[in-house]
């Protein structure tokens, strides 16, 4: 089902995959939030590359813009606002026993996911191999997403906008603090 990939492609895919994995591992093992955040940004970038390589250009760009550019920046804002990176504020990780247990749980979950992933995928959902190219030619990359989004999933789109509104209101209220809180 998969077309034959050129070596160039495969090499870069693996390269950025490894980078993503290594960055994630580095992120998890940091104690301080700031380096952790930066490692996570690195992971996001690598994943964005992978997205582009997987014919999801729009998503890749969105990953950089939204995840790495907005969400992680907000994280770093909060860290710096509350001065959480200072050594006196650092919270430790759990003890060795906990870490071992967590590792085991993780491995177990991985094993289960791999078992489940071996199930056969239903054939009727699979589209033609050159479906994506056709779509790309008909519309461009953005159009490829926009068409289903505003047609088939319009309701979800609208609901998401409501969700964003609620989130904004919530964030404002929660972030305002006691002095200006509603009484």
């Amino acid at each position, binding site marked *: 089902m998969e077309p034959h990939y050129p070596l160039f492609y495969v090499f870069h895919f693996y390269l950025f995959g490894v980078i993503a994995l290594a960055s994630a591992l580095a992120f998890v093992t940091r104690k301080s939030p700031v380096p952790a955040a930066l490692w996570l940004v690195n992971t996001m970038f690598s994943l964005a590359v*992978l997205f582009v390589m997987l014919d999801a250009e729009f998503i890749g760009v969105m990953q950089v813009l939204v995840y790495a550019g*907005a969400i992680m920046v*907000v994280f770093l804002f909060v860290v710096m606002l509350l001065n959480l990176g200072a050594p006196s504020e650092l*919270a430790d990780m759990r003890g060795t026993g906990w870490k071992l247990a967590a590792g085991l749980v993780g491995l177990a979950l991985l094993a289960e996911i791999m078992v489940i992933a071996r199930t056969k995928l239903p054939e009727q959902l699979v589209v033609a191999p050159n479906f994506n190219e056709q779509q790309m030619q008909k519309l461009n990359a953005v159009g490829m997403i926009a068409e289903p989004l505003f047609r088939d999933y319009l309701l979800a789109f609208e609901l998401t906008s409501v969700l964003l509104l609620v*989130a904004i209101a919530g964030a*404002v209220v929660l972030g305002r603090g006691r002095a200006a809180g509603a009484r």
Partner: protein
Amino acid sequence: MLAESLALSAALFIIGVVGVLVHRNAIIIFMCVELMLTAVNLTFVAFSRFYGAAGQVFVVFVMTVSAAEAAVGLAIIIAIFRHRQTIDLKDINLLRG
């Protein structure tokens, strides 16, 4: 590339889970959750190659929700920090029953 993408996605997800379990710093736990969500995004995108653009549409939603959640969550953390001057999880146990 589907199998590799899925494997990578699973690995990243597991790393995120382990991170949630191991850390006691609320901010880092939050960031691990973001990592998990990103891993799921990778899965969706990997599948969208074979099943049409619906996967990518879903990624849009995931990202949106993730952003909203991050905003609200960080606001909560700020509020907690204001009251307790700490974000260590072991000190945040007012819900004890």
